[in-house]
């Protein structure tokens, strides 16, 4: 499980947020809300261990993520604002090299299935630079399907997707949570997770407040 206790963060001399605490158990989803500029992305980056926090700690299975770095990183899937996709490579090549870097085994067949499920059938061998913004995001999200990581940290996953892809992603998140995974995501819209079978999954919300 992921436990965040008393995190605070500042940018320059300006405090962003303070005393942020929450916990995420297996089979739970947490929607992180907050106004623009309140520090949602900074919080997610701290949770992933990319940025240091001013105070507080992030624990993964009761050990801080710094002590437990390798185990934490192999259980983590992070999708940030940068999609980490290469414009010159095809969707399939992007997926394969990304999987190898993040230490996952992914066969070509699995990658093709993942792309097809994100509605990119027939576009697997197109270089990303000829794809639309939405198709690029679909490629990035296809990594979720192939991911075996239990913890998904997603920064604005619903941006630039059409209604059908939004439904697909919601189904994907619901399925992951039902299978005992954890999802932590930010979004400016209320999100209800409904799995393909129609059962809905509870989503907790945490509202991030800036320091006045």
């Amino acid at each position, binding site marked *: 499980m992921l436990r965040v206790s008393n995190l605070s963060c500042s940018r320059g001399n300006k405090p962003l947020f303070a005393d942020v605490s929450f916990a995420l158990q297996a089979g739970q989803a947490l929607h992180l809300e907050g106004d623009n500029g309140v520090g949602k992305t900074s919080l997610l980056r701290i949770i*992933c*261990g*990319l*940025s*240091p926090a001013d105070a507080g700690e992030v624990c993964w299975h009761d050990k801080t993520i710094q002590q437990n770095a*390798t185990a934490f*990183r*192999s259980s*983590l899937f*992070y999708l*940030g*604002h*940068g*999609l*980490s*996709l*290469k414009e*010159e*490579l095809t969707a399939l*090549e992007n997926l*394969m*090299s*990304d999987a*190898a*870097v*993040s*230490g996952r085994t992914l066969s070509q067949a699995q990658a093709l299935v993942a792309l097809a499920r994100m509605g990119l059938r027939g576009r697997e061998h197109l*270089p990303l630079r000829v794809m639309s913004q939405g198709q690029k995001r679909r490629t990035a999200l296809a990594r979720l399907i192939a991911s075996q990581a239990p913890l998904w940290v997603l920064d604005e996953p619903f941006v630039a997707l059409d209604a059908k892809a939004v439904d697909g992603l919601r189904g994907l998140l619901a399925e992951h949570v039902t299978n005992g995974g954890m999802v932590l995501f930010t979004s400016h819209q209320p999100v209800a997770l409904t799995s393909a079978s129609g059962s809905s999954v509870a989503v907790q919300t945490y509202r991030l407040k800036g320091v006045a």
Partner: protein
Amino acid sequence: MSGTAFMAVLRRDLLLAMRRKSEVLTAVFFFVVVAALFPLGIGPELNTLRLVAPGVLWVGALLSSMLALQRLFEADYRDGTLEQMALSPTPMSLLISAKLLAHWLVSGVPLVLLAPVLGLQFDLSADALVTLTLALLLGTPVLSLVGGIGAALTLGVRGGGVLLSLLVLPLFIPVLVFGAGAVEAQASGLGAQAHFSILMAMLLPAAFFSPFACAAALRIALE
């Protein structure tokens, strides 16, 4: 598992270099043009040409590798690939060493291969050409490795290109001195053995420490 990740980064960077040919070719053409212009500018005085050849070719190689250096981590930083590398269970320094190796294969090896051809314009003897090529083979990886630290430190800094040159060029001086010196020592009959040993003594610690230094600098840049 670490090996797969290393190979994946290496393969990806080489594939990207193949698809962005213009970027790679710019640096190589720069080297060719610089080396080709000098004999024209100096004139057909063979003794002078033989004398300046090692220095000119080394300075050309050094500046051409500077050109490629600025883009070493830039694209990965902007599109988030570097974040994924920092979050990989594989040690970041190993992934960075794959990047540095790919960078040398793309920007250093063509220079090593072209040097003997370009050296002919300076009327270098076969013996001197072999020495020059060997010296470049030992020296250009040092340029990539030490330059990589500079590129990592200046990542995301405004005016990073100028800062990178200021930071890295002084560190290239020993490589230049002993690299160019090898050819002169060989020509004067002293033998280039000592120069090769010193170049090797620069290459080995650079190869060992540079990935760690780059990874540490990149983690700071990512904060």
